Every structure is written in structure tokens, then in C-alpha cells.
């Protein structure tokens, strides 16, 4: 905190002379300033945009990149400046942080780009000033939700894991009807029966002509065709019961399932029937039984499993609970006040309907909501004045919380719209990613086929003519291909394309993977040596592009926590501050980690003889190494 007012430290120290005469002990010796150099200007060249500042300004925060010796890594001797190949627009804010001690977040910047820059320069985002903190946190949360959404969708759209139990697959079928046709059929059938059941409840009460034997009485359809309706009801309830029991059986956490809203609705929907079965003969409680039939209408809420819009509405109401509560409370207050006033105002007039304050409640509610039935009207002048005030205030009281609820609904609705759009675009996005990945792999295979890597000299010279044509490959590519070739030589496996891999995968699925896997488990690190599930492959793809992958990841996670933990960050700082020799082993340490992981993948064919699996095994390594090459 004091770094922001570092310029005033000399003043504070000078003012300490005021303590000297009253000091009870002798003063300590002052620290010796080792560098008595004058405060110099430092030139920072960020992708061409030059920034200049005092050295002391930067050194106010010694645990950041610019404030520590870490910046020496970026020093250019010939131009006597520090060059960073980063975004100059965001750097402006970072430099302002050093100058003013306050970090601001520019609204037009992308949150992830900003976070990356902060992480690069070693600044913790938690120190963002109050003025920008809310905006920053909101954007962060939105971004996290988006990433979480993507991950969830990925996980949901995974291929069925071979070792998923029947119970789990059933639960998946219930939760995501579009995963299998059975689930879809089930979904539509239940939807149909809900609709039928609700329609039956409604039609039951329609007057339907007269009974055949008793011409005088009008009966409802329910009474006339009692048996038919009863059979229909039974069928529906049976379907609902079966569905509920299946869901209960399939739920991963039964207790949580029983507590959830949807299951309570399910139970309430089918309970009246069973209670009715038990109680039909007892005439005394038939009144209660009739009441229970009202609960059958709750079946309509079962539709919320089928309709996203209903769910959004329900979620909105839940999230606006406080606004609704406030609305209710203020309405109640107003009702009581006005009802009291109207009662006493109308007490005098003869034949007035305002017989008591509770009786006046009805008038107040009808007036405040601007319904105005007209069954109770004030007759005295005073009553009319207060009545008009009542209706005016009613409009206000109701109108106030409504925009809040509406904006909440709008926000949630737009969120779901965005999620829908993302899902739709996801397919094209994934296709593009896959194309890029396979493009990389194909380039290497093409390269190989051009024979640029063959060992024999004659072929090389023969193809030299051809090679010259392909010489247009940039240096990066050639080096990359050389690397992949080294890998092939190391593992004694080769890269091939998708089709060959698929076909050999079929063959190898016969081979028992467990035995051979355990043999290689001991040699490879725990993290990546698991079954060839897509999930893990995807995880390895997500690792960022630097060799300091693990370290960066950790520090990113540290950044996202609320508590500021200085130590982990300084650890990564000290790693980079360490002498250059130390960083090299760090790099080489990472490489075998990745290669070892790759070795662990093609476990099944390892035990089989070399000649046979030279076709099949490379397929594994290829698909995994595709991931590595993406790194």
C-alpha cells in the first residue's frame, strides 16, 4: 500500500526527527543505500510502442516482472531498452498501475487477454481498484460460465464410456433425451401422456348432456363416462409411476433426487390417485378426496422437463424471490393501511358494504390492482378521496418491482439463448479444430511420403529434385518434422493416418488391455497413463503452449482465488529469476514427461511381436502424437 506513496517516504523519514528528542532508546543505524545511482529513465519497448518511466517507479513492486531482475531477460543491449512482444494497449494499464498504485480494467478489452497480460507481468488481479473491480468480476464470471458450459457440453457429448453401468446409462438417457433413440421415445411418450392426462382432467368437468335414466339432471362428462375416464387416469398414473420409479432407481444420488423439485412434482401428481384408491368407500372423507383431485393439475408442471422456457420462468421467479417478497410486503402494508382508512371513512354511510376492516381488504386489493369490480364502492366524499389515492398508489407499488423481475428474466433468457447459439456453433467449431489438427498430422505424413526423411542416400538424391520443389517449407516446419521423426526413432513406432488406426483399433480391442497396461504403469508418470478415453486426450490438448505448462496453469489457478497467496506466485517468479542454467533442466524435464506419457498409450501392442504391430501400434502413437504436435 505504501508503494503508491513511495515518493513521500523521504518526507516521512525526515519527519521522524520529531521523535528523536523523546526517544527512550537509541535509534538504529539507517540502511545503507547500495545503489546511489541517480534515478534513471527506463525505456520499455512494447511491440514498437515506447514507454518510458523512472526506474524507481518500476521498483516499487519488486515481486512483479518489471520490478525485479526478471526484466533483465528482456534487455536489448544494442538499443538500451527492454523489449516485450506483448499488447501495447493493455500494457498501458499495467504501467499505470506502477505509477498510481491502482490497477484499472478497461471495459472494451477481452477478459482473457487482460488476464494473460497480468499473469505475464506478474500482477495479481485482486488489487484492481474499487472503481473497476465489479466490472472485472462480472466479466470473469461470465467467462468462467462460458468455459464451464463448454466443458459440460463436452462431457455430455462424450462417447459412451465402455465401462458405464446400466444405471448410469439410464440416468443419462433420462437427463439428455437426445442421446439415444430409446430415450427420445420415452421422452415423447411421457410428454404425450402428460398432455392426455391434463386434457382428461379438464374435459371431465364439462357438462355432457343428461344421464340416460334420469332426464332431469345435467351431468358432467366425468360422471357420464366414469369408467372410461377412470381407465384413462389409471393408465396415465401407471406410466407416471413407472417413470418415477425408473428415475429413482437410476439416480446417482437417491437422496438428492428425492429432494429435487421435479420429483416432488411427480409425487404430488400421482398421489391423489393412490389416495383415492384407498379411500373411495369412505363417504366422510370424500370431501377431502375431491380436494385432492385438485392436485392432479400439478401434472402440468411435469411439462417443465420438456420445456426450457418453463424452466427459465421458474428459475427467474426463484432468483427474484427477494423482489417478489418485497412486493408482497409493501402490498400488504398498503392494503392494511387503506382498508383501515376506508372502513372508518365509510362507517357513517348507511348500507355500506364496508362492514369490517377485513371486508375492506377485498375493496383495497381490487382497487390497488386496478381491477375495480364495482361490487364495493365508497359512497361518502371522504371515502371517495381516499379510494382514489388508494388506486393511484396501487399502480406505483406494483409497478416498482416488476422491472427488476423483467430484467432478471431477460438476463437469464439471453443467457440460455447464448448457450443455444454456442451449442449450434459448436459443431462447426469442433470440425474446424479437428481439421486443423489433422492438417498438422497430414502435413507430416505428406512430408514423409515425399521421402525427405528416408535414410538411403540414393533415394534422397533421386528425390532431391522433388525435394527442391518442397523446399518452400518454412524452417519451423522442417524442424518440427525432424522432431517428429526423432520421436518415431525413439519409440520405434511410426505415424500413420486415421483409417489405418481405426481398423487396427478393432483388432486390438480383443486384446486384454489391463495386463500390459499395468506393466507400463510403473515406468510412466501417473497423470496421463490411463485408458484411452477421449476425455484425457482432450485434457492433454488443452495444455497451453509453453513448456512451463504446469507452472503457468498453477499460477493461473492461484490468480482466480480470492485470497491473495503471495508465496506460490513468488515461487514461479523465483523459478524464472533463477540462473539460466537452471531453466534448461526444467525444459528437458518436461519433455520426457510428455514422451513417456505417449509411450504409455500404445500398451496393448507392446507385448505382441514387433513385426506384427508395426502397422497397428503406430496408429495409437499417431493419434496421441497428434495431440503432442498440437502442443
Amino acid at each position, binding site marked *: 500500500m505504501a508503494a503508491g506513496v513511495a515518493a513521500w517516504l*523521504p518526507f516521512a523519514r525526515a519527519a521522524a526527527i520529531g521523535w528523536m528528542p523523546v526517544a527512550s532508546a*537509541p535509534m538504529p543505524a539507517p540502511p545503507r543505500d547500495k545503489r546511489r545511482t541517480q534515478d534513471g529513465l527506463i525505456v520499455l519497448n512494447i511491440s514498437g510502442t515506447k514507454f518510458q518511466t523512472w526506474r524507481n517507479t518500476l521498483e516499487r513492486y519488486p515481486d512483479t516482472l518489471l520490478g525485479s531482475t526478471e526484466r533483465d531477460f528482456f534487455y536489448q543491449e544494442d538499443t538500451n531498452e527492454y523489449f516485450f512482444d506483448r499488447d501495447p494497449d493493455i500494457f498501458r494499464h499495467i504501467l499505470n498501475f506502477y505509477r498510481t498504485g491502482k490497477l484499472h480494467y478497461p471495459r472494451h478489452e477481452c477478459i482473457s487477454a487482460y488476464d494473460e497480460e497480468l499473469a505475464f507481468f506478474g500482477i495479481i488481479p485482486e488489487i484492481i481498484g474499487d472503481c473497476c473491480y465489479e466490472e472485472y468480476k462480472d466479466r470473469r464470471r461470465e467467462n468462467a460460465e462460458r468455459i464451464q458450459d463448454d466443458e459440460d457440453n463436452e462431457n455430455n457429448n462424450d462417447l459412451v464410456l465402455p465401462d458405464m453401468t446400466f444405471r448410469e446409462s439410464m440416468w443419462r438417457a433420462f437427463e439428455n433425451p437426445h442421446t439415444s433413440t430409446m430415450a427420445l421415445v420415452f421422452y415423447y411418450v411421457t410428454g404425450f401422456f402428460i398432455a392426455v392426462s391434463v386434457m382428461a382432467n379438464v374435459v371431465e368437468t364439462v357438462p355432457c348432456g343428461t344421464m340416460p335414466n334420469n332426464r332431469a339432471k345435467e351431468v358432467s362428462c366425468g360422471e357420464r363416462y366414469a369408467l372410461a375416464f377412470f381407465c384413462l387416469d389409471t393408465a396415465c398414473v401407471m406410466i407416471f409411476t413407472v417413470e418415477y420409479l425408473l428415475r429413482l432407481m437410476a439416480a446417482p444420488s437417491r437422496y438428492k433426487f428425492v429432494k429435487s423439485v421435479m420429483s416432488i412434482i411427480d409425487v404430488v401428481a400421482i398421489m391423489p390417485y393412490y389416495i383415492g384408491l384407498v379411500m373411495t368407500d369412505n363417504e366422510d372423507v370424500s370431501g377431502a378426496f375431491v380436494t385432492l383431485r385438485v392436485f392432479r393439475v400439478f401434472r402440468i408442471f411435469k411439462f417443465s422437463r420438456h420445456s426450457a422456457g418453463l424452466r427459465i420462468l421458474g428459475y427467474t421467479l426463484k432468483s427474484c424471490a427477494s423482489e417478489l417478497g418485497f412486493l408482497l410486503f409493501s402490498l400488504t402494508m398498503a392494503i392494511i393501511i387503506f382498508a383501515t382508512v376506508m372502513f372508518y371513512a365509510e362507517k357513517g354511510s348507511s348500507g355500506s358494504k364496508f362492514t369490517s376492516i377485513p371486508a375492506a381488504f377485498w375493496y383495497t386489493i381490487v382497487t390497488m390492482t386496478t381491477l375495480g369490480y364495482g361490487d364495493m364502492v365508497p359512497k361518502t366524499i371522504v371515502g371517495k*378521496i381516499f379510494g382514489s389515492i388508494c388506486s393511484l398508489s396501487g399502480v406505483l407499488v406494483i409497478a416498482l418491482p416488476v422491472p427488476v423481475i423483467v430484467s432478471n428474466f431477460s438476463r437469464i433468457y439471453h443467457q440460455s439463448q447464448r448457450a443455444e447459439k454456442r451449442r449450434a456453433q459448436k459443431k462447426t467449431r469442433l470440425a474446424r479444430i479437428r481439421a486443423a489438427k489433422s492438417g498438422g498430422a497430414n502435413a507430416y505424413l505428406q512430408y514423409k511420403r515425399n521421402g525427405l526423411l528416408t535414410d538411403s542416400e540414393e533415394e534422397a538424391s533421386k528425390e532431391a529434385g522433388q525435394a527442391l520443389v518442397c523446399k518452400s517449407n518454412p524452417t519451423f516446419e522442417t524442424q518440427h518434422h525432424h522432431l517428429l521423426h526423432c520421436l518415431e526413432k525413439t519409440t520405434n513406432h511410426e505415424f500413420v493416418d486415421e483409417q489405418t488406426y481405426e481398423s487396427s483399433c478393432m483388432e486390438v480391442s480383443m486384446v486384454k488391455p489391463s495386463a500390459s497396461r499395468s506393466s507400463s504403469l510403473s515406468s510412466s508418470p501417473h497423470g496421463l497413463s490411463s485408458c484411452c478415453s477421449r476425455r484425457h486426450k482432450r485434457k492433454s490438448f488443452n495444455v497451453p503452449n509453453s513448456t512451463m505448462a504446469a507452472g503457468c496453469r498453477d499460477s493461473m489457478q492461484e490468480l482466480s482465488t480470492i485470497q491473495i497467496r503471495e508465496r506460490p506466485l513468488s515461487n514461479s517468479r523465483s523459478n524464472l529469476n533463477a540462473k539460466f542454467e537452471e531453466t534448461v533442466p526444467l525444459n528437458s524435464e518436461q519433455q520426457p514427461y510428455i514422451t513417456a506419457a505417449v509411450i504409455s498409450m500404445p500398451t496393448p501392442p507392446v507385448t505382441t511381436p514387433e513385426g506384427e504391430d508395426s502397422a497397428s501400434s503406430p496408429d495409437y502413437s499417431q493419434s496421441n502424437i497428434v495431440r503432442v504436435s498440437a502442443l
Partner: protein
Amino acid sequence: MNLEGLEMIAVLVVVVLFVKVLEQFGLLEASYDDSVEDELELSAVRHRPEGLEKLEAQTRFSRKELQILYRGFKNECPSGVVNEDTFKDIYSQFFPQGDASTYAHFLFNAFDTDHNGSVSFEDFVMGLSILLRGSVQEKLNWAFNLYDINKDGYITKEEMLDIMKAIYDMMGKCTYPILKEETPRQHVDMFFQKMDKNKDGVVTIDEFIDCCQNDENIMRSMQLFENVI
């Protein structure tokens, strides 16, 4: 509440509504009139210091030192003057555990030599010049001026107690050994025992300077902050 009372209330309500309507028409002025003055406040407070040469002549700082000092000063106070609240704020940032506001108040008064409620750059630099480049006599003079709260030439026990409490406040709560209530008072008594030669209950400037010049520790500590700039 009988009908008469209710009628009166109804009439009252109607009258209030009528007044509101008149206000809307602007015929009746609502009584909010402090906003105008706030606007004037903001524009008045700006101050430019005297030229570099003049300051160089008046103080014992070199040109470069004055540049550095001014840059730091202006950075924190863009308007060119420090008022007491900003001063307290800045000073408190150096003592996060305790409450530095009381001592900052006394310091502010010591720097604000013309007592106009704000410390301009000239005041600031003059004060620093004495503290860092002045002779021992001048420094002791400055310290005496700091302790003498009402600037009457005498330090009384009450004044000293205030200063002492302010200094101990800066320590905050978490000290070792624990701060007791009577510690400042004891410290003041010790101070007066040392300084008050004629035991008249006040310390004059001569007693103060004499006593300090005879005390080795104090003399040595006065030279401590020579190289701060």
C-alpha cells in the same frame, strides 16, 4: 378518529398534492441550495509553486533534488497543495498497524507555517530543508515547534502528553510488551524530568536545546537522516 378528523386529514392531503403541483410548475421553489457552492469549491484550489531558482536560493537543496521532490509531491497532490485530510491519508499509509492521524495532524501544523490550512510545495520544501540540511540548532528548533502545540513558546505537560499519545497511537494495538494506559504518561514524566531544569512544569526553548545538546544519543540520532534524498 371521528369523521371530522378524517375530513381534515383528507383536506390536508389535497392541499399537499396541490403544493406539489405548484412546485412542478416552478411557482414554488424547493429549498435545496448547497449544490451551487460545492461547484465553486473545486475550481479554487490550485497552486503553482515559485520558480526553481527562488526555491534553490531559499532552501539548501540542489536543483536535481528539488526536481525529484516536486515530482513526488505533485504526483500525490495534483492540485499543488496538500490539505490536512490528504496529508493524514498519505502519512497513515506508512503506518498501517496503528492510527497515525493524530500525529499527522501535529505534523501538518508544524509544516503549515503560515497556518492557512494547506501545505503548499514551498512549505513542504522549507520544512524538509530544515529537517535534512539544517544545523542541529535549527532541527531542535523545529522539533520544539512541533511539540509546542499552541505555539506559545512553552511545552506544557498536557501538550507533551498529547504528542506522546499520538506517537504511541501509531504503534497500534499489537505491540510487545503490551501497551498500557499509563505508558505515555510515564514517558512524559521521564521527558520532563530530563528537560525541565527549573521544575516549573513547562519546558522552554532554551531548556530544550540545552538539554538536547548535552545528550549524546539525541545528537547522534539527529544526523541519522542526512542521506534521505
